């Protein structure tokens, strides 16, 4: 096997620190205001594609063309994943996985085909290219509308996620010590009997070449911490999971969370839930902290604005969208109030969806999905642009093509989707102070939404009742249930720039076979009037 391995440790330490990286995500300049131009992705260069990988790429593309492809791309992926899990005073799992392979995608007579193999050799890529073309031709039989790709310029270059300290370089003892120290702090809290904490780390190195002349290499780093404490009462148990957002960031982010220093406070919330009052059902003003609201954005704005979903392509699994058809919704559908602006991007620093180029070689973009409360545009890939360019005037792909690994085909995935801050510098406390009767939700609890993204039901890890501008105590078993257009149109207060926070997930699911997407959502605290609060406990 001829492909050479680069020494990641050496190149990581040589990476130039990007101006702005390492700061907390809530600082002002990580939040672009509406209509700001996308920041340039021309950032620290890691070494360009290996000569051997480049040769294999060209071989794959040539074989694909010979087999009849009008367009083809080839993606080499090297994935290194490390996972550490602990409970109480022991380590339950330490694992390190590497996976390397190549996938070829072909367009023959307007039909897609894809084939992937772990044999990264001349014979392997040839077979994959031929198999992909074969699959394309087999799909032709049941074809109605040939795929048309929007133009994309050939790009060459390399990029890597800017980090101060590569998490893969950090010794295992340091990682384990941090987690066990957090557990120990939590176990000091009365009634806390169980605690689990962990880390998921990923380094993805991707080389993409296309028949348009694109050849790009990117290295992504993503980290995801986890912490849950469980309190045992008399015939009852309550858990608290702190919302530790996964990020496209390095060890500095994980260290900055100070899990050992905060674990005691987090665990005491689990204990407090044991004696919290069970919520009284009814209509309340709902105040959502960003640690909870980000997921509501993901489910009720992120997903319905995926264009393929709106056109029915996810009907068999993830569902369809009420934000359809495009001709009835673009510029017409009122999603929320005038001060509501929702941005899509693959550019926010420390975000999970940040790239220089997507999996079709399209440069990262920043655009508005919702502008002044009106739905404006969808998420798109190259083959989707022509479906709506007449309505949006946009001729380029927004760069949403992504595959979770070398063995999966790339398709339209969610970019970061963020609720932009309001004009006034308001905080969660300011919103509480303005509220007569409400419930505050923090962190994620349960989440569920229907197949067209209308009816949803969410809860948090902790909720608090608000009376006459003050927190009146913790309540439990609470969930909020609403209908998307009614919900966003009932929003009447929104936080300012200092309250902006970047949540996210490694586990955004879509597609058949299902693939996981990593995505971040920035948002501010917000208030929603007169929302239905239900009780999901034993009495519910």
């Amino acid at each position, binding site marked *: 096997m001829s492909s050479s391995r680069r020494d990641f440790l050496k190149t990581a330490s040589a990476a130039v620190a990007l101006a702005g990286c390492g700061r907390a995500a809530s600082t002002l300049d990580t939040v672009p205001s509406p209509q700001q131009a996308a920041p340039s992705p021309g950032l620290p260069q890691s070494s360009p594609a290996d000569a051997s990988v480049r040769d294999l790429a060209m071989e794959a593309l040539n074989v694909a063309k010979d087999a009849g492809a009008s367009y083809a791309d080839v993606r080499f992926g090297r994935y290194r994943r490390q996972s550490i899990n602990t409970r109480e005073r022991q380590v339950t799992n330490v694992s*390190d996985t590497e996976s390397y392979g190549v996938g070829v995608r072909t367009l023959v007579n307007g039909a897609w085909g894809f084939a992937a*193999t772990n044999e990264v050799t001349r014979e392997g890529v040839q077979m994959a290219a031929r198999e992909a073309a074969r699959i394309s031709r087999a799909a032709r039989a049941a074809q109605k509308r040939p795929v048309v790709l929007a133009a994309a310029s050939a790009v060459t270059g390399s990029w890597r996620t800017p980090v101060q300290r590569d998490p893969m370089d950090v010794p*295992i003892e340091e990682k384990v010590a941090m987690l066990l120290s957090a557990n120990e702090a939590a176990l000091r809290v009365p009634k806390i009997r169980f605690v689990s904490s962990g880390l998921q780390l990923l380094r993805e190195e991707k080389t993409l070449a296309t028949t348009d002349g694109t050849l790009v290499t990117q290295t992504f780093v993503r980290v995801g911490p986890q912490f849950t404490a469980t309190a045992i009462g008399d015939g009852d148990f309550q858990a608290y999971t702190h919302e530790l957002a996964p990020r496209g960031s390095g060890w500095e982010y994980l260290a900055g969370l100070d899990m050992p220093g905060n674990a005691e406070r987090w665990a005491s919330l689990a204990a407090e839930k044991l004696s919290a009052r069970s919520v009284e059902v009814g209509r309340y003003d709902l105040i959502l902290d960003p640690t909870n609201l980000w997921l509501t954005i993901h489910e009720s704005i992120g997903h319905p604005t995926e264009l393929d979903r709106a056109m*029915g392509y996810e009907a068999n699994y993830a569902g369809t969208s009420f934000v359809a058809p495009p001709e009835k919704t673009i510029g017409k559908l009122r999603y929320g109030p005038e001060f509501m602006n929702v941005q899509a991007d693959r550019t926010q620093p420390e975000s999970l969806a940040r790239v220089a180029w997507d999996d079709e070689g399209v440069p990262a973009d920043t655009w508005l999905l919702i502008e002044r409360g009106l739905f404006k545009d969808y998420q798109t890939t190259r083959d989707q642009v022509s479906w709506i360019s007449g309505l949006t005037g946009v001729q380029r792909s927004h760069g949403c093509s992504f595959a979770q690994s070398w063995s999966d085909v790339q398709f339209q995935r969610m970019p970061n989707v963020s609720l932009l801050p309001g004009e006034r510098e308001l905080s969660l406390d300011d919103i509480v102070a303005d509220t007569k009767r409400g419930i505050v939700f923090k962190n994620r609890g349960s989440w569920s939404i229907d197949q067209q993204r209308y009816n949803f039901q969410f809860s948090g890890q902790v909720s608090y009742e608000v009376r006459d501008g003050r927190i009146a105590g913790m309540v439990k078993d609470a969930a909020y249930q609403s209908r998307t257009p009614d919900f966003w149109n009932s929003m009447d207060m929104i936080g300012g720039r200092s309250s902006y926070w970047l949540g996210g997930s490694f586990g955004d699911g879509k597609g058949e076979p299902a693939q996981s997407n990593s995505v971040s959502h920035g948002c501010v605290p917000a208030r929603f009037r007169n929302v239905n609060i239900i009780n999901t406990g*034993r009495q519910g």
Partner: protein
Amino acid sequence: MPIKLLSRDEVKSLTDRALAASAAVGQPDDVRVNVQSGWTGNTRFAGGEITTAGGSTDTTVAITSSFGRRTAAATTNLLDDASLRRTAELSQRLAKLSPEDPEALPTLGAQPVGTIASAYAERTADLTPEARALAVQRVLDGARSAAGDLGNDLFVAGYLEANAGVAQAVATSRGLFAYHASSDVTLSTTARTPDGTGSGYAVAGARDWSLVDPAELGRRAARKAVASRNPQAIEPGQYTVVLEPQAVADLISQLPGSFQARAAEEGRSPFSKKGGGTKVGERIADPRVTLFSDPTDPDLLGQPFDAEGLPIGRTVLIDNGVLKDLVYSRYWAQRRGVAPTGGASTYGGFGGGGGIAGGLKMAGGSKSVDELIAGTERGVLVTHFFYIRFLDQRTVMVTGLTRDGTFLIEKGKVTRPLKNFRFNESPLFMLNKIDDLGRAERVRAGMVVPSLRVRDFNFSSLSDAV
């Protein structure tokens, strides 16, 4: 791509090489090697045409090394000797740096592991892109023919996926070797009417492709789509429901976590008792409910050993309504002085004691769904559910939505289509509200359940979604 199944001997030679690589780079007290190898081929369609289709092959080798009670695992898909040595070395280095795990156990020696040969069917492994495209065409033709005037305008989407290969092979430095190959194919389809008010779903699958009828699937989904047009809303509340097997499976698959012995004994499960102990031996469901796991069951044909190589036999979780067996990891079984049931994950046991390996089957009666409907005075017929998530671990209370074919039953007949509901219900409570059971059917690999008629199912709010 043409794949040749790695034979038992070929896999043994790979695991021997991995064990030799481990011995060459260090002296761990224990080494376990897990291999998975195979092929997957898929064809997705929407709007009456194939949208994406692909296939991939891979072989992964996981090496878990232990020094005393220090354990770690490293995985690779590069199979040359140098890569195996590198992976073994990484695994050993990580293990030496890990703290001791007081619950670590030595790996197993040779075990009496059975073979489930019929879990692998050549016909499924041979499902070429052309054959898959042809199957999709049959689904589309079937849907069109069953939709009458709407036939040409019906929006039909779906997915066909075939998998074949070595599902799992385990080898240890103490002489264990186990090998299991399996194949499986699933075909599902959703049909939607052009006015956007009707939607129907159907799914079928088997280990052997020759048992699947694509045209019939298309017809079933299309009939439901046409029948579900212009749904009417009825008030949320508690209703008698007839749940098709897919709907029952959606709910039953929320249960396995509750059967962990450790969680139950630690007070963290619906089967924990106030004051200590578990509800084993107590009635927790209707006496007609029997729920078990057994890899040799001809409807399940599951893997007869877990990732540690521990043989998996028959585990009866609920026996005629009584909570019978809980699932014990090796560590927890040893602590409690009972036999382990197996099911640990690839990277060593996690605290609660494994999942339900070997598949899950709920015994049924003999009635068809139509017969259950005929015996219903007033109720709601549910095809399947969507987006089920936990609300409360203490009661297994979950929430979700109905989807793709929800109908009103009056005096034994389906009378009109209904708007979809959100429900808040617990599958555990549901098993206590059973009115009647239908025939058990395979819903997907490792899940065989009957249709059910259930009383007082809680529909909590209406959904506009079709």
